[in-house]
């Protein structure tokens, strides 16, 4: 798993908002911003690729099946996304033992769609938190999806 330590201030922009007729500046709760984000294949099952968020406080989570091949862990209390697990084999990301071209992009797209699905399922009540999760993934995609080879170089094969 490749872990990236996050600078909380980078994701805590102040913006204006009207609250009951009063214009104030608001920013995300410090507990909504993860301390780190990690991406990589699960050690015991390399065909499973996971993106994980490490928050300042931990809580119990519940599994949400966002798609047949994607499982999302969501906080019971905060409804934050703790991890997104993708089955690369079920996704059809490989042609035999070799990854298909554009696998990284496809996995990332599936993960973003899974997050959108979770958000819609909750009537967008926590839309800001899920938007932040997508932003964090997009900002660190190179590092997170590093372990998924984009293309296979001559003669090499990726074994699962």
């Amino acid at each position, binding site marked *: 798993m490749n872990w990236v330590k996050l600078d909380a201030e980078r994701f*805590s922009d*102040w913006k204006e908002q009207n*609250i009951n007729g009063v214009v104030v500046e608001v920013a*995300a709760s410090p507990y909504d911003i993860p301390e780190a984000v990690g991406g990589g294949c699960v050690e015991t099952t390399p065909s499973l690729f996971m993106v994980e968020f490490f928050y*300042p406080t931990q809580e119990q989570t519940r599994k949400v099946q966002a798609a047949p091949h994607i499982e999302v862990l969501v906080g019971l209390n905060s409804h934050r996304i703790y991890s997104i697990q993708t089955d690369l084999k079920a996704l059809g990301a490989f042609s035999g033992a070799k990854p298909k071209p554009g696998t990284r992009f496809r996995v990332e797209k599936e993960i973003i769609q899974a997050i959108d699905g979770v958000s819609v399922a909750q009537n967008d009540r926590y839309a800001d938190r899920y938007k932040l999760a997508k932003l964090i993934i997009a900002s660190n995609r190179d590092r997170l999806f590093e372990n998924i080879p984009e293309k296979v170089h001559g003669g090499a094969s990726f074994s699962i």
Partner: protein
Amino acid sequence: MMSIRDKFRRVHFALTLLQGFLVFVSAAISAVAKLDSATMTSPLWKQLTIYLQNTAWWTPPLCILLVPIVQYSKNYFGQPKLWDCIHFMLNDFRGEAFSEEQASQAFHRVTLFQHKTCCFSIQAWRLYKTGPLAGWLVPVERSGHLTRKCKTRFPATDAGKTAGVAGQTWLKNLCIYMENLPELTASSPDTLVEEYAQKTWSDPTWLKKELAKNGKVLPRSYCGIPIEIKGKPWGVLLFDSAGPCMLGKNRITKGVYGKRAILAKVLEKV
């Protein structure tokens, strides 16, 4: 709550000694109950032994029963060392948020509000027309050593009824910052007081009462930060300043972001 807890600390040690004494007395009486008073030569010890043996059926159980009651009263206000730690952290946040020029502790403060189900303030019930068990934000700790006799309570009900900057921070679960609020004095016109009340989601009647207090200065800028434990909202950290604007709201968030995990961990134990 803060001033009561401050006074309670003085008896906390005495209560610990009382617990130990109760356990000792219970064990001693249980041991005396097994003695044979007929073999004693000293009349004083014989009489004392007989007396203790006659009361041995209720005194040890009573002592044992009192031990958890004393422990509960010790725990009600939380461990003093934990609150010392929280107070230290609030002082640290204050030091990071406010510059050296703004040194007065009474005018630049950090207050920790905890969300509690019940509130024992008739004044607050009447002011906000909210029941005692509806949900309230109660100040439980503050930076510095001044303005600790704080009686402010804000409603924070399940239905979304709130008041004040702390209340809105709780409701929205977002950091909220506002500045350049009107400077109020006891002789300020009603229109200015109402403007302040509208901008801070407060009650103008309550503001006038506060201003009437000798030497009371109302803050002109606020920054509220939601605090949570294990994914659940716990309370609000409120920065307030008599200055028209806090020199760096980013300094506030930077300071809090760096210690948010530690703060949550300590508050878990309270």
